[in-house]
C-alpha cells in the first residue's frame, strides 16, 4: 500500500484555515449586523475549527492509502467514515491529473479516475508528486486500454 506525500497535510490544513477564515468573517458579520458576539467567543470558535481541521488533516493522512492491484485500483480513506473502494481497471473511463493553486504551490498533483458509475463515479487520489501522478495516470491508462470490455457500462 502506498501512502500520500506528507505535504498533502499542509493542503488539508490550509483548507481548514480557509473554513475557519470564512467562519470568522460570518461571525464578524453577525457581530456587526445581527447581535454582538464577544470577541473571545469569536476567537475561540475560530481556534477550535483550526485545531479540529489540523487534527483531521493529520489523521486523514495517516489513513489514506492506495494500491494498484492486479485487477483494480484499491483505495482506503476517510476519518469519520472509512471507505475501502475497489475500482476495476475495466471500468476506468478516463484519467485526469489535476492540481489547484495550493497544490501547485506545494508541488503536488492529484489523479482523478472516472467510472461510469452513479456514485463514487470519480475517485481522486490527492497528494502525489507531479511525476508520480503522471506515472500513475499512464499506468492506469494502459491498464484501462489493456483490460478489455465490449461495453464499459
Amino acid at each position, binding site marked *: 500500500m502506498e501512502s500520500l506525500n506528507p505535504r498533502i497535510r499542509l493542503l488539508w490544513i490550509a483548507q481548514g484555515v480557509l473554513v475557519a477564515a470564512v467562519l470568522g*468573517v460570518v461571525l*464578524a*458579520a453577525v457581530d*456587526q*449586523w445581527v447581535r454582538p458576539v464577544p470577541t473571545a467567543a469569536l476567537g475561540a470558535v475560530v481556534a477550535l475549527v483550526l485545531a479540529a481541521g489540523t487534527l483531521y488533516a493529520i489523521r486523514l493522512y495517516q489513513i489514506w492509502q492506495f494500491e494498484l492491484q492486479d*485487477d*483494480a485500483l484499491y483505495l482506503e480513506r*476517510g476519518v*469519520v*467514515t*472509512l*471507505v*475501502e*473502494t*475497489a*475500482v*476495476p481497471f*475495466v*471500468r*476506468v*473511463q*478516463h*484519467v*485526469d*491529473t*489535476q*492540481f*489547484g*493553486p495550493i*497544490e*501547485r504551490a506545494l508541488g503536488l498533483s492529484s489523479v482523478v479516475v*472516472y*467510472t*461510469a*458509475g*452513479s*456514485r*463514487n*463515479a*470519480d*475517485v481522486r487520489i490527492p497528494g502525489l508528486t507531479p511525476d508520480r501522478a503522471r506515472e500513475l*495516470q499512464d499506468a492506469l*491508462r494502459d491498464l*484501462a*486500454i489493456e483490460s*478489455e*470490455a*465490449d*461495453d*464499459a*457500462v
Partner: protein
Amino acid sequence: MNRLHPLSAAAYALQYGFFWLWIPVVFVVVLSGIFDPIRAAWVPIAAPLGFLFGTAYGVVYYYRFGYEITSDTVDVASGVVARRDREIPYGRIQNVDIRQSVFQRLFGLATVSIETAGGGDTEAALNFVSETEANRLQAEIRRRTAEAKDRRRERKRDRSVAGTDSTVVGPEPPDVEEGDASVPSEDVSSGSDAERPPEAGEEPRAAEDGTRVRSRRPAEEPAQEGTTLGPVADRDRREDPTRHPQQQPLFDLEPRELLLYSFTSFRPAAVAAALFVFFFATETILEAFITAAQPFGGPADLGTGDPASYGILTIVSGVISILVTYAISVAYTFATYYDFQLGRVGDDFVYERGLLQRYSGSIPAEKVQSVTVTDNPLQRLIEYGGLWVETAGYGPESNGGSQSAVPLAKHGRVYRFAENLTGVETPSFESPSPIARRRYAVRYSLVAAAFVAIAFGVSTLTPFESWYVAAAAFLAVPPAAHLRYVHIGYYVGDDHLVIRSGFWRRRTTVIPYYRIQTVSARRSIFQRRLGLASLVVDTASSRSFFWSSTTIYDVDLEDARAVREASRERLQTALRERAEADDVGLSVDFT
C-alpha cells in the same frame, strides 16, 4: 498539443471579463458593510480592475488550453492556475458531437464535445474549433476508435485460437463474431466525411435555440437510441398494429392490477400537486375546511374560536388534505399506467402506457444494468410487487434510470420475470449481523429523543403542556428497528448479487457481476466499534435522485470483505466469459 481557434481567445476574454467584473464588486460591497476600513466608494475602481483581470485570464486560458489525438487516447489539457490533464482512451468514447450555434455558423466555428459513458457532463468540450477541424476530429476519432475495436477483437481471436489449441491448418476458422464485427471497412478508411450525406448514427438535429448538432457514435454500433420517450398519438398505435411486426407481447397490465397498483402506491408528486392547488386557491379552500369542520364543533370562522375548536379544525382539514392528496395520487397513477403493455422487439423491450397521453419507450436490453423488484407494506400484504429495470443512459436524448417493466403483478410472477430476465437462481437471503438490529434501536431511540426534545421546546413556547406524551414515540423504536433489520438481506449468487433492503419501499435488486462498476466497504465510527461494514455496489444505473445506490447494510466486516472480493473476482470471470461468448447476457425468453 493543438490550440483552439484564435477567435475563442476573444470569446473567453469577454466571457471571463464580464464574470470577473462582478466578483470584486460583490466583495467590496459585502466587506465594506463588515469592516470599517473598506469603503463602498471603491467599487468604480474595483469593477474595471476585475474586468481587466478577467480579460487577461480569458486570453491566458486560451493559450493554456490544448488538445491532442495520440495513438491510444484523446488528451485535453486545460486550466490557468489549476491544471487538468485528461486522457480518454478511444475504447471508452461513446459519442463525438459537433454543435454550431447561429453565431458560430456565421464565423465558421463549431464546438466539439466528446462523451464517454456515465456522468452527466461532457468529458471534453472543445470550445471552439473551425468547422473543418471539427470534421477532421470527428472523422479521426472515429477511425481510431474503430481501429482500437479491431485490435481488441483480433487479440481476442488470437487468444481464443491459442486457447483451444486448434489443429486446424490452412484457412482461418470462420469468424463467429462476424455479425458484430461488420464495421464497414470502406467507411473507416474514407478520410473526410464532410461531403457525405448524413447516415445512421449521424443525424443533424435542431436544438430549441437554433443550435445545429451532429452526433456520432464512433464505434459504429447499430443506431441505438437508448430510451426514447415521447408522446405517441393513441390512434397511430391502434390503427397500425403492424408497426412492430415482430413485437412479442410480454406483459399486459390487467384492469384489476391497474386498480390495485393505483390504490396501493403513493406518488410524492401528488403532495406537490395538492400544495400547488392550495396556494392557488388558499381562501376558498380554508373556507371549505371551516364549513366541513363546523358539524364536528369547529370554529364559526378563522377569527373566533377556542383551542378545542381550532384543534378540531386542524384534525378535519388534515384528514381532508390527506384524502385529497391520496385521491390525486390514485388518479395520477391510474392515468399514467392505464393500459400498460410491455413487449419485446429484437433486443429491446418496448412499453406503452397512459390514458390521456400515450407514452411509449424502449429499454435496450444490452444497456440493462440491474433489475429491481419493489413493494410497499400494502403490496406485500396482498403479495404483489413491481419490477423495475435500470439502464445506463448517455447522449443528448437518451435518459438512463429506472423504467417500470411490470408496474404490479403477483409476487410469484414478478420474481419469475426477474429470474428469467437476468438468469439469476432463486436467492436464499442471508441476514446482516444481529448487532445491526441493536444499532437501529439506538439510532431510532435518538430520533425519538429528538422528537421529545422538540415537543418540550414547543411546550415552553406555547400553551401546550403535556410534552411527555411525545415519549410514546419510544414505543415505536423496537418494532421499527426490527422491521428495518428483517428487511435487509443479500445473496451472493453464481452470476449475480441480490441485495434487498427497505421497509416502506422494499427493493430487491439483482446485479449481474459483469455490471459492477466499483465496490466500496464503508465503515462509520459507530460501525467500526461494532465491527460492521456497509458494502456499496455501484453500477452505471440508479442515477435517479430518489434511489440511493444499492447497499448491503451492516454486515460483519469479514462478510463484507468476502463479498467484495467475490464480486471483484466474479466480475473478472464474467468479463472473460462474456468476451468469449460475445452474447448480450440477457435471456431472450422473458416470460
